């Protein structure tokens, strides 16, 4: 509707004489979003709302109050078997009962020397720890906080720049609309087309800064 509005005006829908005050002229655009509305749209779309900065600053400040936690667990299964070997002399000695041997050397030689399993062992270890570390110096001023402050400054600059541009575009567009409204028959066709293109361009630029919400808002109304 708003796009067509100037064209309708150019057909002679309104004249300067129809308005008795500048407020009455601007009232013709009452169904369009205000500059404050457009600024809010740009603010939301650019994610430069001060609420984000506030939350960042709070987070940076409170982050140092939380400790850095380290959890550690170690499992270890340690096992082993002991083996033994025997010489024929040890076997003969072992077979002695009351000093009398029951086995000859030849018989002992015939026996295997091992290995014999002498011991089995298994050990299972579980070690766990929890470590908490507070950097007290970070509580008073952390490097993160300085970084956040620096970033916040950049965000403010960006926000101001975006809103300055949005405000400028908004009023340039409005002046063009007023010009079309008050001079519907003035100028040649080429100028009218040029104005109309410029109006579309300004609308598109506002859409660029607001993610299309500006045009959506016009359509809703």
């Amino acid at each position, binding site marked *: 509707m708003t796009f067509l509005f100037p064209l309708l005006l150019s057909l002679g829908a309104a004249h*300067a004489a129809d*308005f008795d005050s*500048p*407020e009455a*002229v*601007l009232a013709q655009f009452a169904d369009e979003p205000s*500059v*404050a509305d457009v*600024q809010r749209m740009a603010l939301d779309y650019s994610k430069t709302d*001060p609420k984000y*900065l506030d939350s960042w600053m709070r987070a940076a400040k409170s982050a140092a109050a939380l*400790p850095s936690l380290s959890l*550690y667990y*170690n499992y270890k299964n*340690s096992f082993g078997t002991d083996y033994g070997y025997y010489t024929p002399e040890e076997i003969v000695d072992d077979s002695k009962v009351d000093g009398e041997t029951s086995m000859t050397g030849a018989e002992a030689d015939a026996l295997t020397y091992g290995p*014999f*399993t002498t*011991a*089995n*062992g*298994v*050990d*299972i*270890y*579980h*070690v*766990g*720890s*929890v*470590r*908490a*570390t*507070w*950097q*007290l*110096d970070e*509580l*008073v*001023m952390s*490097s993160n*906080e*300085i*970084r956040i*402050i*620096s970033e*916040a*400054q950049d*965000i*403010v*600059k960006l926000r*101001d720049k975006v809103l*300055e541009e949005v*405000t400028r575009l*908004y*009023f340039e567009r*409005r*002046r063009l609309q*007023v*010009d079309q409204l*008050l001079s519907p028959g003035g100028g040649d066709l080429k100028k009218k087309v040029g104005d109309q293109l410029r109006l579309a361009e300004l609308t598109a630029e506002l859409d660029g800064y607001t993610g299309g919400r500006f045009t959506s808002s016009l359509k809703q109304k």
Partner: protein
Amino acid sequence: MLLPVLLWSLSRAYAQEGPTSASVPPPGPVVSIGTAAAWVEERGTAGFDSRLASLARSVDGTNWLLGLEDGTIYRSMDGARSWSRVLRSPNDRRDEPDEEQLLLEGEAVVAEDAQRAESQSDSVEDQEGVASTETSVSVDADAEASAVDSSAAPRDLGAADSVDLDRVATDPLLKDHDTEDRPATVWFDPVDAEVALAGRSDGIWRSTDSGLHWTRVDSAADAWRFLAVPKLGIVVAGSSNGVRVSPDGGGRWFDTVDVTDGLEVRALTLLGDTLVAGTAGGLVTSTDGLRWKRLAFTGAVTGLLADPGWPGGMWVTTPGGVMRTDDAGKSFYTAGRQVMPGLRGLAPLVGQGHLVTWGTDGVWESMDGGVTWHPVYQGLRDPDVRDLVVVGDQPVIVASRSVWRLGVSVGGSTGATVSARGDAPVALEEQQLLGLLVDVATRRTGLRLDTLNPHALAIKPLLPAVHLEAIYGRQVGRDSQPLAGQTVENADGAFELRAMLCFGGCSLTGLLDFADTVDSYAADIGDYSGELADASQSITPEVYTLDGELMGADTEAFAATNTAQGIRKYRGQVSDQVVGAWATLQTTVHTPPPPSLSGAVDRLLDIQEAEARLDLYTEGAYTRARTSENVR
């Protein structure tokens, strides 16, 4: 360097209970003087024939004196906005025609004085008021004439001290005074608002009527500084040739024969009960004003300020920067890293550790006892600041050509001091509203300087890291011996809590040496310790970029300084934007609407755009203020 800073911080609590000098404002919240304000020139003061040199304000605030470089003295009774000449330059007097003419003029003045005595009911203030309102810079002929008239000299002086026309004509001191223009130093007694002193190339002058009439009371040339010492009942003057002492509030002066002879004494202060004088050759001190001895500091001194919050603490301005002593002059160190050339003086502002210094490069403010300084330059087109007087919480400065005060300039108006602060403005005057808007705009999240606390940075290295660790270990084992037919099982466990405070660079190895409780864990814990130690090493180096520069973890102070400078710079730009939008708004609002409808609509749109820009920078504070007032 850090120790005095820490001690200074710790001393703040002490300072709030300790004695405070009369000249030092009481402790209070430290608010930067440059937060929402810009220097505004008192336009009426731009018409002086010579450059300005010194400024003084009476203790009751009703009278101001201004000394010029050629020795001329002006007086103001309206807050340093308009001035009347009360004492001509010494060189002017020499241009007078001859002795006979002088006598004739003197007779006329005597006659006028008699007439004036009869009409005493016409107050001096009234006469001054007329002179002041007619022009910003005027000549008070009566006052000038009486400056060389014995009958108009202060009555409380002895006859020998009065200066009459005959003496003027024959006084070799007047004839011998230097033909070169020398600046006049003006001073008001801190107790008696009527008494004023001025030091010029032709000697010391005294007034007992708040600077209206002057009498030359001493021949010592070039008295740079005056200081009252109530406890000793004396007034001390620092001149180009040492220290002079007056026992009667400046009526008579005596030279002191001591180490100060031949030295230019540029600064005087009281450090406790001790007098300290700053000279071109260092500091000298005295307990009685008569006998002086040198201190360790031998550099040129231009200004002194005793620290009320630290006994023995004192700041010293030099041509190259600010120095400080914490031990009454036994040792000195550099206060602040900023290069501040040509400093001339130092003064306290409201709030503990809130200082201002000035010189050839403008005005500098410190909010941390001199550790860091930042320039207060907004709007100051003439940075050659000669003198400064603090009124309330705002400074008034004398630059080389005119008087400036801190305020907000709109459409040529002057003297609007920003005092309103807060976020919910109601019923504000226009000027206050602008001050508020600038304040709100520059205190938005991201532009607040108080988030960068220099004290915190200073004490950071002194704070430890706290490590707490809980360790639990359990071991289960089984050993069997088949040949013997035996099986043995065992189980061991351990629980341990450890805490460590870690100052400076820390290693976790000591904390994690956990092999003493369960021997069999030694290898495991050793590995564990090694892993974590490696992990901690990988975390420690912090490197990031800030404003395009590579910053390390140990350069937080520099990062904070850079960030603060960036914030200050942008705050200045924001202030300019807000003031610009405000000026546009005011100009447009007060311009009659054009007759054509399109012109009227353009004007209305200009107003709306300016208002939208104000809201943009103030997060809607302008509209909120206007809504609450129902303005327009």
